[in-house]
């Protein structure tokens, strides 16, 4: 409980301070020249391109599917599709939204099949954030709750949340990725957050976090 209060205070302060959001989750802008080279048949450029996006593809798949193995399968499928369909990308859309559209589509397809049992190695995730140890333990627990809560969301709500928070996409970019109207994206995101906070409140009351 003390830990939680401590974390809560830090989080609130941090949030207040971070009026400019940290952009660590977003896809770095892939150079259009690289995309063009890849489209022109430069295989090395295409491979480089895939290397640049593979982590982002995986991250989306991981949080939509909530399962490492499924995420690996889905991301490989997405990368293969990007490799073979690079020429179907048109510059009127952002490359990153095109990529995310492919991976979310694949994930939603997979998601519609019977979902496998919960993975055993839930805690063996790779962390790249450099928090201190105490915070990391807390983040781990919280992250687990949040992931469970996200897992309960309907597929499109989940995709919106993942693109918003894991890819740091704007409303517009989410709309482009999921091929949804802007208002629908907003309504999905708002409803998803309300549902998540309500779920997490339940976890809190159940003493899971305290």
């Amino acid at each position, binding site marked *: 409980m003390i830990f939680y209060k401590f974390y*809560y205070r830090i*989080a*609130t302060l941090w*949030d207040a301070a971070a009026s400019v*959001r*940290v952009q*660590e*989750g977003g896809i770095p802008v892939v150079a259009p020249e690289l995309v063009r080279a890849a489209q*022109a*048949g430069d*295989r090395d450029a295409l*491979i480089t391109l*895939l*290397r640049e996006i*593979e*982590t982002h*593809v*995986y*991250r989306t798949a*991981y*949080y939509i599917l909530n399962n*490492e193995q499924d*995420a*690996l399968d889905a*991301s*490989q*499928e997405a*990368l*293969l*599709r990007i*490799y*073979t*369909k*690079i*020429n*179907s990308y048109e510059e009127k859309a952002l490359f990153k939204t095109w990529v995310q559209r492919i991976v979310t589509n694949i994930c939603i*397809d997979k998601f519609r*099949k019977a979902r496998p049992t919960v993975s055993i190695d839930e805690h063996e995730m*790779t*962390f*790249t*954030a450099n928090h201190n140890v105490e915070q990391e333990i807390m*983040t781990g627990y919280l*992250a687990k709750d*949040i992931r469970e809560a996200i897992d309960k969301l309907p597929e499109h709500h989940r995709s919106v*949340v993942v693109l*918003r*928070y*894991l890819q740091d996409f*704007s*409303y517009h970019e989410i709309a482009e990725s999921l091929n949804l109207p802007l208002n629908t994206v*907003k309504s999905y*995101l*708002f409803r998803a*957050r*309300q549902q*998540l*906070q309500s779920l*997490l*409140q339940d976890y809190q009351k159940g003493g899971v976090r305290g």
Partner: protein
Amino acid sequence: MNCQEVMELMQRHLDEDLDTQEEMELQDHLRHCQECTEMFERLQRLSQELTQLPKVVPPYSLVDALIPQLGEIDKAAAQAATEPSIVLGRAPHTINKDEGQSPRRKWTRRLESQFSWKFAGGVIAAGLILGFFAFNMKHPVLDNADGLLPPKASKEIASSSTVQHAPAAADATSAANAKRMAINDSPQASAAVTTPSSDAQQQPTTQPAAGGSSQAQGQASPDATVEKPQPLKDAGVDASSPTPKMAPSTSEPARMKGASGKASNEAVPGPTAPAASSPQPGPQGSEQNQAARIQATEPPASSPVAGPQEPKTKTPNTNGVYSLMTQAPVPLKSLTGTYEAVIENHHVVIRNSASREIVYTSAYQGQDSDEVVLSAWSKDDKLTYQVKSGDISKSFVIDVKTKTESST
């Protein structure tokens, strides 16, 4: 401003979507609404936690793992691109990406999503087992069935009408044989069928089919000069190939099972069986004859009917019966390839290889006990042959060009 509207402001605040005016309205409301303030705090915390979700990275490089697959795709694409790129005059890579591979990927994915591999494996295993039965018995029933599937409705009618006639032919011994055979077969056929439901369909359809087949035999036999008991048995089963057609409700695997089940207790068709019905289609039983003819092409070259279709055989291919009798002698080709010599009725007959006209027939009149042996062709188209009569052996030389024969 009510709390519902404020909720949207709070949400948009989290996404930094508020302008200054809206921000002030939100703060105003929060200042005097405890409930909204608490909700706002929870939402902010949630948003913060979401932002801080672990930035997971793949445990290994996905691209590295994919490189071999990418190479294969490139290879396949290069092959697919060679022709279309010439025809369409488009850049090869365009074809690679858009037309060469994506259908393949799509196909695979669709397969993955709609079928479980367990199911597919089961189907494949069943197919292998059926294939084993079908091919192990060297029985062409399956091929017959395939060949008969395309025919139009008229054929269907023909087949059903022959079934109706079948009882009339039942008093013939051949018909009785075939029918008995079919009845004997059917329990075993159903034993080979795994699904009990298809048993019921299998048994009744087998018997009429066998009846029809017996008629086929009856009609075919007038054309045939050679007739053995064995053909009855074979024809009985061969002509049962219409069976699947008459039971359209039976699923494909069940039909195959039925066919292979019957095949399993049949011996390899006797070599004369196809010949019996194949040369000229019977006036009415054309379908059965067709079935038999299709089948006739199936057995190994030892089958007499295969003779006419084999380019190297010297016998006339207009008459199947004739070919049947003259199959045995091996023709001796001249060194120039122009002529072929063959022994027929103790005469040496020389034919033109191309036109198959008889060029010369040897004049020597031997006895039935004499053995005529073709020795060799010389380079100038002279054929040497020997006649052994008891201990005496005589040599003859035929000059084809002058059409003369001399003994040496």
